[in-house]
């Protein structure tokens, strides 16, 4: 089951470019996925399968024509490409350059393939996690362990002669533990992943992760409701970086910026954050969950400085939206599958390490909230309004971390919260997540060191 041959691809591109468009592009993929779900220590669901299809994109000025199909036979693809080209009247010549293979350094090699192992090994690893969560405390009443991996082969070719082939191997575990009292249930969750093969699962300390999830659930079960109001908020490292991802990252993506539909549009060179903030999107980190060896329109990934000491330095840009902004693509065009037009998205996005110490951040806070583990969130890129949930939170009183509180939600405006970051520690850490936007759901890392926001609206029931 090979992806398409060169002659077929060339002929399809030629058909797509027949009406003189600027660019014709073909994206073909075949993806094998494996998934397993274990509830309370028993395997409940095992699912595997194959995604397969082709997307053809034609760009002419401000217009995009996109067609996709599962059909992979030559005549059908040529027919689809030809009818797509008829909706464009371009003034470029209709030749397609000779396709020549691009050299792509493999930033994320996978050592062990799913076909190399017995699937019962997955169940054995998950079972160890489930056992560890149950052993943590009798209050743990349910566990849900999950495994998901994929091997995605892609081919990206275009009328400028691009021929890029890549294979992305990703592996992720998910660990949830539910603690129950008579009337309450609280969940602790972690979802570690990497752009690696099965070696990731073998190296994973699933017992420790599961018992931490259990600890989080039990702590929250016993916690009082979070008070509401405006307080200083200390956000811990790792998944705490979701604040930057939501509050700022989405607003720096070209899809919003190019249409002036972002609070950060037109602000290059201006101060948009406290001088303590330097923020980076880096798709080149070896084997990291959000990395890519090549992006989905054939650019190599880069380390992009977004904000440097508070000054806006750059956006994340794809080819189509970049043209509208007069900016070069930044190697971060991504799509969930052949069903999506690629746009610039985040890869591994983080606030860089600062000079404050964790101890100083906590001891200098008289009263506030310490958000140890963040949940997910969302943002309206036009207004910058964001919200996110805190999975594990504590009250900070007189410089000490005190009692746990649950049900906290943080809300605010991205533009304001960035200016209100008044302390940044040095303990940078990344964490894995999935990010949904116009080009689908893609793996990303968020990250940061521990930071403090001088004042934020905290929503709770207490």
């Amino acid at each position, binding site marked *: 089951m090979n992806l398409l041959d060169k002659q077929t691809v060339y002929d399809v591109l030629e058909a797509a470019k027949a009406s003189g468009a600027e660019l014709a592009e073909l994206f073909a993929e075949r993806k094998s996925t494996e998934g397993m779900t274990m509830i309370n220590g028993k395997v409940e669901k095992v699912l595997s399968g194959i995604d397969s299809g082709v997307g053809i994109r034609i760009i002419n000025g401000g217009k995009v024509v996109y067609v996709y199909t599962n059909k992979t036979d030559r005549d059908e693809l040529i027919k689809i490409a030809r009818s797509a080209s008829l909706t464009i009247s371009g003034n470029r010549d209709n030749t397609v350059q000779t396709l020549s293979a691009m050299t792509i350094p493999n930033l994320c090699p996978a050592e062990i393939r799913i076909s190399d192992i017995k699937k019962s090994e997955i169940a054995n690893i998950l079972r160890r996690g489930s056992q560890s969560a149950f052993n943590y405390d009798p209050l743990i009443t349910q566990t849900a362990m999950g495994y998901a991996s994929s091997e995605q082969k892609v081919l990206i070719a275009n009328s400028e002669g691009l021929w890029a082939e890549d294979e992305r191997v990703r592996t992720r575990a998910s660990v949830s533990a539910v603690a129950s009292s008579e009337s309450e249930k609280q969940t602790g969750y972690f979802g570690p992943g990497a752009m690696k093969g099965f070696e990731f699962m073998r190296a994973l300390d699933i017992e420790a992760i599961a018992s931490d999830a259990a600890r989080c659930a039990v702590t929250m079960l016993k916690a009082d409701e979070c008070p*509401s109001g405006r307080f200083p908020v200390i956000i811990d490292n790792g998944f705490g970086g979701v604040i930057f991802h939501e509050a700022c990252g989405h607003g720096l993506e070209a899809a919003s910026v190019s249409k002036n539909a972002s609070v950060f549009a037109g602000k290059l060179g201006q101060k948009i954050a406290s001088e303590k903030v330097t923020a980076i999107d880096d798709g080149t980190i070896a084997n990291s969950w959000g990395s890519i060896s090549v992006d989905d329109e054939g650019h190599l990934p880069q380390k992009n400085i977004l904000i440097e000491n508070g000054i806006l330095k750059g956006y994340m840009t794809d080819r189509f939206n970049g043209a509208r902004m007069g900016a070069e693509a930044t190697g971060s065009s991504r799509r969930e599958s052949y069903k999506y037009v690629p746009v610039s998205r985040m890869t591994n996005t983080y606030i860089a390490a600062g000079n404050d110490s964790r101890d100083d951040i906590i001891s200098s806070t008289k009263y506030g909230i310490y958000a140890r583990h963040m949940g997910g969130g969302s943002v309206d890129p036009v207004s910058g309004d964001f919200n996110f*949930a805190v999975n594990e939170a504590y009250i900070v009183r007189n410089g000490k971390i005190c009692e746990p509180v649950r049900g906290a939600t943080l809300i605010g405006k991205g533009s304001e919260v960035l200016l209100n970051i008044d302390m940044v520690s040095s303990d940078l850490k990344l964490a894995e997540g999935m990010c949904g936007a116009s080009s689908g759901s893609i793996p990303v890392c968020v990250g940061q060191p521990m930071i403090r926001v001088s004042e934020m609206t905290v929503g709770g029931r207490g």
Partner: protein
Amino acid sequence: MDIVLFKEKLFKKALDEGFTKCELFYSSADSEDIKVYKGETEKYSVTNTGGFGFRGLYNGKMGYFFSEYISEEVIDTVIQNAMQNAELIETDDKEEIFSGSDKYEKVEHFNEALLNVSPEIKTRFALDMERFALEYDKRIIAVNSSIIDTVSGETYIANTSGLELSDKSNFALAYIDVIAEKDGEQIEKGEFKLAQSYDELNAKEIAEQAAKKALSALGASSVKSGEYDIIIQNEAFADILECFEGCFYGDNVRKGFSLLKDSIGKSIASETVTIADEPLLKGGFSSTPFDSEGVACYNKNVVENGELKLLLHNMTSAAAMGTTSTGNGFKASFKSTVGTNATNFYLKPGESDFTDLLTKLKDGLLITEVQGLHSGANKISGDFSLAAEGFLIKDGKIDRPVNQITVASNFYKILKSVKTVGTDLKFGISGVGSPSVHIEKVAVSGL
């Protein structure tokens, strides 16, 4: 390759290899999608996809495999993987392959005429929507997207127990996203309309609805933290209902992922609350004659005047709880295993119109939108704390727009504190619907 021919070859090989029963679930979709920007077509997209999910009983356990690649050369891969996957299953659940219901109701949701609407007509429509929004008020400074899609889908289920069903449906979706600006503040709001006939779509109406939403939200500010009586507007309450729909799934109840254990026949909501699941609803976007297991669908009340009448079941959860499937055994797609899902799931309208609701509320908040349901809601405990926006209501009238607040409560608790249900039933894009509801004493945090 032809799906029926493929099925026959696949079943023959599967039975030869030791599967006792097996099933093929195939679905396909065709769509045409037009998006305009600044008076020109920005994106034109045509799609055609399909794929199958295979499941089969091997040593009494169900093994699954899916593929979008449909060809004879994939048959061995399907069978080998489904076998391995079956062997790993450890639950005691008995998942069955169904031979069929006695009778299936007819659901008319395919409109041939929709296929004949040309791309030119649709482009004109999207351009009209954009223009109407911009002309509505000069504070509407941009239309981020103006989109019209037409989508047709087909489902085919066949198994070795004699079941063979198919269904096809189509619809059109119009969507617009506008940006309003005043004194440097920008607000983006959208509006959509799903329809089964092109004539039901009115470009002006959709555009003006979106424009009104954005304009009315300009100049919003927060309110003082405290306990408020609130009205949650139809679309926002439909979003909340959708988020907690899983509380009513038998499968979640038996596994302890819902708090409705042993609650059938008991009062779980105020008497004004009746929640229905109606797969045969005329014009419903989730209407369907059968579920993904081939069980016939029927209309029912899940909650009636506050009392829990039943839980939604697939065949497996029903068998485990000693009842029968309610025809809610759905796969999220051909790639999925059978789970549970509601169809047209909605809170039945009451008798107070919107003005009435505001008058009865007198002083409080009207919540028009909640955000963060995917993260700020605990689907098991029912707790939520959500970013919200809306309006401050004084003496039964809208006083000013409100944003930067959170609304925190618990789903089970608000079901019990619904005071009045409105008449303005509206279905969200997800297929879950609700009228506006008046709820007492909810914690709101702001300033």
